[in-house]
């Protein structure tokens, strides 16, 4: 990995990092990847698990839920007439 890689990843992750922070992450990544790459030596076939999966989907019916709409609206950093205000997207 190099600094350009860290910058690309930071961009994908929508993180603004100072040059010092990028250098730090680069050196941290080195150590961590060194540790986790031991999985490359392991040979595994796909699991022979006989467990079945359970479908947890529910019907598309309106259900009431207990939450505070007011608390949600109060916490919008910017709002107008009860709508969340965001920067231009298009």
């Amino acid at each position, binding site marked *: 990995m190099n600094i350009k890689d860290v910058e690309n990843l930071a961009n994908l992750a929508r993180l603004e990092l100072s040059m010092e922070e990028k250098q730090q992450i680069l050196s941290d990544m080195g150590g961590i990847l060194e*540790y986790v790459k031991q999985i490359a030596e392991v040979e595994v076939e796909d699991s022979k*698990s006989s467990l079945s999966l359970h479908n947890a989907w529910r019907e598309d019916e309106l259900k009431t839920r*207990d939450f*505070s709409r007011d608390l949600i609206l109060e916490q*919008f950093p910017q709002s107008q007439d009860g709508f969340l205000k965001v920067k231009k*997207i298009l």
Partner: protein
Amino acid sequence: MIDLKSLTIEKAHASLKNKEFTAVELAQAYLKVIEEKNPEINAYLEVYDDVLEQAEIADKKFADGSATLMTGIPTAIKDNILIKSRIVSAGSKILGNYRAAYDATAIKYLKGVGAVFLGRTNMDEFAMGSSTQTSAYGVTKNPVDLSRVPGGSSGGSAAALASNMALAALGTETCGSVREPSAFCGLVGLKPTYGAVSREGIIAMGNSLDQVSPFGKCVRDTEIIFNLTSKYDEEDSTSVPESLRITQSKINSKKIGVPWHLFKEGVDRDVLENFKESIEKLKKLGYEIVDIELPHAKYSLAAYYIIMPAEVSTNLSRFDGIRYGHSAKGVDLMEVYKKSRGEGFGREARRRIILGTYVLSHGYYDAYYNKAVKIREKIKEEVMEVLQKVDYILTPTVPITAFKLGEKMDDPVAMYLCDIFSAPANLSGVPSLALPSGLSKEGLPFSIQFMASHFREDLLFEVGKEFEKAK
């Protein structure tokens, strides 16, 4: 003067029922200890302003006869469990002012019986850590030795319980975040079967791993909280329906499997010695110790440190400065995202988000993430197979005892290795119980940890109670 040190949930309940003290008096006693000790220990980030009102509600339940075991019990709640209208910050600046719009399901159960929430406890930021040193709100100190860490990420809850600043405490586990601090602070810690306790209202770190996990001063206390909260929740799609809470375990044998091959190196000598002494105690209690092999378990931590960051990078993408939390000013949407997140997340969080983004990215997805998922399946298979032959798998909880504040901060991997014995249970979903097993020459707690088959928490409680009586 109530003797808080000797209290357990059942003892407190009996005293409340017999009117030896009221729930208000009990809460006041804990508030007093918090006032004395919390400034130094920093277990609590916030003590709630309505503790006595909550206690009054509990007293009414004793008056009308509807009180149950957790009624009036002063409880510490980790800062990533939602309590409606309360600030819940996950130890992070990005949620420093975030107020929960609803109660976590686990909180609903506790509220329903009139438990008393004393306040929210410190944690590693977004549960990322094993020492409660990455919180944006300061470190928490280990009450057993104030120069040492309490463990993490649920260090605040552990420290609160261990210093009599609470009688019960909730944490969460993604990989050892309750068992490891239990070990460092001399407490019991239970990680339930994945899917046993609802994750609704828990700030997610790793969806396939997270579980609400209780601490306890004794095994029975963790059992009480587990029984109250271990129920199917249709709001959580990973919650297991009651009819499916069947176990693969077909035996009841009093056999304990020990994977000695995993301790060949990396475990402190005094930890290993205490582990062997604990085994002798278990033999005297009539348990048979069996050598077992878990060939792929040694890759648990590596697999975890690929899968978890991947899930983290997805889960933390919702913190974008748009709907709640820290929101930075920017000229355009991208700048709002990048600045809010760059400013709001601490170093460990940023590190893991970047790592997760990397292992999921084009060209690396197969080599890292997919491989780790396959290894995880293998580890789970091996654990389940072994638990067909023995009732339990036993290991030390942590390879070391509580280390000094400031240690391991420069080497991420050294910190991650604290959870090397925790990982198999989180990866495979089986329940696991950490038990205090003695004290070192320096007075630091030792701990051993049992795993059992899915939904066999009853076996854990059984062996745990026998072991704690034998001490």
